[in-house]
């Protein structure tokens, strides 16, 4: 049986992966070299400076910035409680009193004699960085984070939404094209795999508490309804959604590739770490599925487009033969004129349905037998 995958996207039963886990700002590393970590292990932490609030004290008291000084009850560097009075003024012989209160608990950072504004910063918030993958800490990045080495299966999808999550991998269909039709309560906390998924099943997965859904294809309307909005630019990973969704092949009714499906079946029940973050630009970032295991085996070699040869198994990734599989019959060196009138380098392909067609090489993916 042949398997399809997108050039540049990796689908391998075994790879040695190094995950750099870095804090967004400097902090403290909590693990040592050689330590074995689980996805949920906290490997580093940092204190994120709290957000600042600006209080228009001069305006509230009705005094100019330069006169604010004599109304202040607190100074730069002082700690304040929420609702604590930080400045006040009296007028009409003490009959009228005005107060400026701190809207938050924090520290006074700046008092401006020009604007009469007081800047108060919230207390720093701890940020805990999880390991995300199970593996061994092999490098410490002082004050920044760690590098974790893990060995296992590694698969990249073509598009995803939702960030880092982990759970037990469960294949819930029996063939790559089969849609997910049922999600039982026992799948709570799991990463489930199926051919396709509709809106109802996505809602059900969220209700049950499924951590991740991996499918071959999905209709764009289903994704829009699930997110509640249309994705504009292809930069994802930060969505506020209850599960991470990874699409392996594309939009529409596309089965998961046989190769990927076989891998998922083989590691059914294993712990998987997944991330839907996608960025389709220079420096492409694709969603990933990491399934750590201890079985040593040769890593799968990735073939690239320039290795397209006569006899190569391919899949068409654009209309009019979108999604169909076939075999390259010939690679004419001269560009051909397409139906559009454009000139392009093409391949002659014998589709599995027996049809002989011409397809621009840019619209083909190599399939590994």
């Amino acid at each position, binding site marked *: 049986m042949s398997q399809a995958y997108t050039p540049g996207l990796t689908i391998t039963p075994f790879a040695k992966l190094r995950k750099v886990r870095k804090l967004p700002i400097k902090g403290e590393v909590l693990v040592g070299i050689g330590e074995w970590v689980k996805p949920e292990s906290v490997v580093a932490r940092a204190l994120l400076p709290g957000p600042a609030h600006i209080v228009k004290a001069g305006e509230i008291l009705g005094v100019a910035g330069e006169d604010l000084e004599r109304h202040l009850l607190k100074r730069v560097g002082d700690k304040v409680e929420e609702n604590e009075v930080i400045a006040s003024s009296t007028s009409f012989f003490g009959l009228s009193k005005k107060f400026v209160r701190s809207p938050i608990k924090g520290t006074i950072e700046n008092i401006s004699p020009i604007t009469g504004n007081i800047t108060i910063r919230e207390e720093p918030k701890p940020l805990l960085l999880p390991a995300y993958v199970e593996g061994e800490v092999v490098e410490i990045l002082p004050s920044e984070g760690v590098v974790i080495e893990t060995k296992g299966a590694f698969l990249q999808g073509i598009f995803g939404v939702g960030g880092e999550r982990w759970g037990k991998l469960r294949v819930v269909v029996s063939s790559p094209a089969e849609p997910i039709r049922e999600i039982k309560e026992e799948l709570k906390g799991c990463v489930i795999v199926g051919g396709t998924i509709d809106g109802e099943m996505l809602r059900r997965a969220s209700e049950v508490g499924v951590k991740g859904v991996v499918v071959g294809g999905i209709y*764009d309307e289903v994704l829009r309804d699930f997110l509640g909005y249309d994705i504009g630019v292809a930069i994802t990973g930060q969505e506020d959604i209850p599960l991470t969704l990874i699409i392996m092949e594309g939009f529409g009714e596309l089965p998961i590739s046989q190769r990927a499906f076989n891998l998922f079946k083989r590691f059914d029940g294993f712990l998987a770490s997944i991330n839907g973050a996608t960025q389709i630009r*220079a420096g492409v970032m694709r969603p990933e599925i990491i399934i750590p295991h201890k079985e040593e085996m040769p890593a799968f070699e990735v073939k690239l487009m320039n290795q397209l040869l006569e006899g190569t198994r391919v899949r068409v990734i654009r209309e009019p033969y979108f999604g169909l599989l076939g075999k390259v019959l010939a690679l004419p060196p001269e560009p051909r004129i397409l139906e559009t009138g454009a000139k392009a380098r093409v391949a002659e392909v014998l589709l599995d349905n027996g049809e002989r067609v011409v397809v621009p090489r840019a619209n083909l993916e190599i399939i590994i037998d």
Partner: protein
Amino acid sequence: MAKAILAVDCGSTTTKAILFTDEGGWHLVSRGEAPTTVEAPFDNVMLGLYNAVRELEELTGREMLKGDSFLIPSTNGKGVDLFLATSSAGGGLQMLVMGVVKTMTAESAHRAALGAGAIVVDCIALDDGREDFQRIQRIREIRPDIILLAGGTDGGTITHVVSLAEMLSAAEPRARLGNLPIPVIYAGNKDAREEVKRILGDKFSVIITENIRPRLEIENLAPAREAIHELFLQHVMRQAPGYNFLMEATTHPIMSTPNAVGLMVQLLAKRLGGNVLAVDIGGATTDVFSVFSQTYNRTVSANLGMSYSICNVMVEATIPLIQRWLPFDVSPKEIRNSLRNKMIRPTTIPQTLKDLYIEQAVAREALRLALEHHKSLARSLVGVQRERTVGDLFVQTTGGETLINMSRVDMIIGSGGVLSHAPKRAQAALMMIDAFQPAGITYLAVDSIFMMPHLGVLSSVLPDVAEEIFWRDCVVPLGSLIAPMGTIREGEVAVSLEGKESLGEVRFGEVKVFPLKDEGEFLIKPHRALDLGEGKGREVVRKLKGGLVGLIVDCRGRPLQIPSQEEKRKEWLRRTYQAFSLPLPGEAR
């Protein structure tokens, strides 16, 4: 004297290297291209650049590299005399701009940043409708390369601009590249300079320039633009992977890509003595450049493009507006999934006419939205009291009108894959006509292989050479467009046209294309209710240039009168496509 010039543009996706030589006249020799390597795993812009130059070496047979060194100057047909570069790699120059009043200092700061080739990630103003904490939160989230802070007129109150500085200090944004403090260009009230330095000096690298609005009625953008350009080279470029090598390798300073295109557009407008509109529609962004009444403006619509951003066009324009340009049936579901698949596999190309026309329909909407964006920023100063003449008595304007008048544009140049590489030149012409709806008489052209950036940077060194190559190899003339303004009954004679002989009439609702390769003088007579720019019913005698498409007479109305009834709309589109001799899906070609 230079005999060979190598110019490269390091784009966000591809690096394009072009060789120009002087063989009794300057001309384009060839072009090589390779993926840009500014991000992981390569992290060095030079790798992609070497690949592009090596491809150029293979294509031209001219050796330009020895190992990793460029052969400069040229000797015995080897090497080059000038090596120039432009760049928008790594997402270009990303800026945050801040001003006190949204439609005044903030808008001037916005224009200064755009004119200097930046992508403006946000424009903060004290009247932008957000609360202080929301502004601070937003500033914390974005990671700009440079911040431009403006506000207040010289001698006026400093309170507001100082409060902006305080906000910036409270937010403490982090730089996108590297760990150095973010440069803040202060171009506001000069009386606040010391205070701004005091507030921001510890956290940022503060650069002081002249006030962008020294008086309400004066906009002084040049000093801020120069400061941005200088910082782009000194600060942002040096942080980008491999740029130090590139800066050492080039014979002249690197320029940002949009800045270089802008230079070329300005040079062209100066030479033509007219109004010019240029557009570059890419995979991620669409840039619009204009020179109207000698005023140069440039905008970038950061999320309107034909691959990475194609679905954002779908979201912003909506599917019905994309569908309205398609002369055949296609369901919204099909459009959605097809655009999504283009987004995730951006290097695929349309194989069928139907697929091509869906992309071209999206391009029309991306161009239309980018022009709307441009019009909203290229406008006269707001809040300025003006002397009025008797003629203005009944015209109530308070400033802020757009400078872009589509009945006064003399030339439109289109650039970017979907326009430059459209299988038929008539498709490029029709996309621009439908999207921009120029009125009156306009000359249309496309950039042959996207070399405006290369020529722009060349124009900063050898302007005459850049211009010579521009007319010889860059501009592909499409032809002149005659489009009367106004509406009459469909089927009535809208325009009659006489050249050396009578060309005939064009009825309202129709578009006709007459063959015209070179230049000819024409008498154009509009219907008494229609206007060609000289007044209703006024005849125009004009020398008109032809091109690969010809002389286009578009009497479909301005604004375009698109039939609302579905079948009529498709029929209307089919007639339009046929007028341009464009094939329709399912027809024998």
